């Protein structure tokens, strides 16, 4: 059975499916109830599950993430939403020093089944404090898993897995993708650490995730006209990372472009690039190209914002340079 859904609906549906099955799953965050979440992702969930399980919180990011930590340690499987991933700064201690480390610090004797939903990404005019892509902050922290779906099916399947996981899973959601419809052919959980080849090709591997999957595909279409064939990998899960899929592709294409929306310096794109260089160096015919946003805060005006972000054209330029 297949169904067309938006990315946002897929997230809502996956949360709802699990909440129907397990009364100990709760969703809380700022304005997730009657307001339906800042982006409408949880619209209607208050009506179905009631105010005990779909909880509006005060504007207190530390207490939001901390409540997830404390409730996960004592029998719930909480889903906490931060309205924007930029607000991580305010609740970071609870995530980095508590959620991520408790299992290890306590000798493996505590479980931390929690999901933190993190709307991210530029392209909405939110400027410097509402449009960042901060995934690298979290991939850097041992103890966290980090996922970032690009389409409805992946959003659905990864959300199911994130909720089922006994570890803290950071669930990035690209704000621009919420209204984007796509076909959901499978409603099964998607294991973390499994990438997806969204377009097969022979000449250059583009490793990417999130909204940039669409940029990569656009570049692939344009380059096909020039007779250059791109293989586009959507890693979907940043940690754990599907290194095997990347390796197999690079063995075939001998070229790699890593495309992410984050500011490039210190980004996760650097980690992927280094992994390719360390592990698959012998397969490479050219240095790995690393594409990201400018190393600036996200600017406001539409022309500046567009200039700040990576584009399909950046991929085309990088590919032509390495061929």
């Amino acid at each position, binding site marked *: 059975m297949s169904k067309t859904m938006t990315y946002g609906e897929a997230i809502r549906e996956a949360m709802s499916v699990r909440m129907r099955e397990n*009364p*100990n799953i*709760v969703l809380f965050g700022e304005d997730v109830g009657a307001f339906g979440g800042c982006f409408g992702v949880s619209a209607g969930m208050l009506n179905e599950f009631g105010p*005990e*399980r779909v*909880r509006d*919180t*005060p504007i*207190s990011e*530390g*207490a939001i*993430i*901390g*409540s*997830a*930590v*404390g*409730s*996960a*340690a*004592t*029998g*719930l499987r*909480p889903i906490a939403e931060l309205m924007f991933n930029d607000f991580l700064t*305010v609740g970071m*201690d*609870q995530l980095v*020093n*508590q959620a991520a480390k*408790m*299992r*290890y*610090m*306590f*000798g*493996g*004797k*505590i*479980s931390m089944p929690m999901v933190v939903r993190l709307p991210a990404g530029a392209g909405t005019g939110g400027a410097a404090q509402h449009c960042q892509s901060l995934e690298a902050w979290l991939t850097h922290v*041992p*103890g966290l*898993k980090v996922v970032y779906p690009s389409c409805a099916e992946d959003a659905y399947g990864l959300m199911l897995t994130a909720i089922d*996981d*006994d*570890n803290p899973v950071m669930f990035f959601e690209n704000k621009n993708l919420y209204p984007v419809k796509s076909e959901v052919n499978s409603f099964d959980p998607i294991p973390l650490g499994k990438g997806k080849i969204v377009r097969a090709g022979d000449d250059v591997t583009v490793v990417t995730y999130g909204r940039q999957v669409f940029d990569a595909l656009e570049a692939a279409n344009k380059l096909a006209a020039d007779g250059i064939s791109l293989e586009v990998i959507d890693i979907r899960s940043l940690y*754990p990372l599907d290194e095997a899929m990347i390796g197999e592709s690079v063995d075939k294409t001998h070229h790699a472009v890593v495309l992410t929306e984050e500011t490039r310096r210190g980004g996760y794109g650097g980690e992927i690039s280094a992994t390719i260089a360390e592990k698959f160096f012998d397969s490479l015919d050219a240095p790995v190209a690393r594409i990201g946003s400018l190393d600036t805060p996200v600017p406001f005006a539409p022309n500046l914002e567009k200039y700040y972000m990576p584009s399909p054209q950046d991929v085309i330029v990088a590919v032509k340079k390495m061929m």
Partner: protein
Amino acid sequence: MAANKEQMKDMYVRMRRIRDFESAAARLFAEGKIYGFAHLYLGEEAIAPAVCECLRDDDFITSTHRGHGHIIAKGGDLNLMMAELFGRATGYCKGKGGSMHIADRDKGILGANGIVGAGQCIACGAGLSVKIRKTDQVCACFFGDGSTNQSTFHESLNLASVWKLPVVFVCENNHYGISMSQDRHQAIKDIADRGAAYGIPGVAVDGNDPLAVFEAVQAAVARAREGKGPTLIECKTYRQHGHFEGDPATYKPKEEQAAWMAKDPMPRYAKFLVENGVMTQAEIDAVDAKVAKEIDDAIAFADAQPFAAEESAVVDVYSDIVEEVRDR
């Protein structure tokens, strides 16, 4: 409600256990047997035993960097604690946590914590869990005066208040945040006053008197179990040692130290028990001897334990991923 005789005796046993454990820890740290940090509970023994006397086994606590007393009071295993302080494989945390990270989920101990104020938010989570699971458990949240200036304190008291969470906030005001005395780190005298800001009861008690602590906590626990929400209890006490072992605490005025040593909860409470016929001196001596042996046994146990295999460092980061062991 005041403590009955059995509860009074039991509190003495727990207090004595903490005093002896901490005294041993101080000595072992000085001898180099304990690595890292040791923030001791010496002087504050009247608080955690009285709080935990009001709790059930299935209730929760969150603790602090100065957590040994809380863990012992909630029934933590002395052998496993000492082995962890020694960094051994069979310690509470398999040698991965140390003094500041001891937890025992089965006993409701949600962990000591190296981040000042972090336990306050975690306690709210435990309280939320109780509400959703519809039990009548409570969570006692221990923290110091220093943490009441953190955002977590204000976020947590507000959240617990507005959600009526079953949390008892127990502030151990030992009058110092590391080297900074309370009158230098905040412009109020009674931290209990801050309860009013969140519409919850705020009570200040003599933190060196377990009976005073017991009475206040008993009422707060009853309120929490009835679903009426949190209480802030400030226990005024004194940190007899430095912030951690090795800190000579030269910033503490000598007269202040002497005045508080005169109010040391251990001899004071023992004297009360004898004078009021709760325990005879002989009974107290017997408890002291039994506890002394427990501590000696814990040290012997810890000393005999192996260190963890180095490769175990990559385990327990996740439930299902073992990190890479690198070539060296």
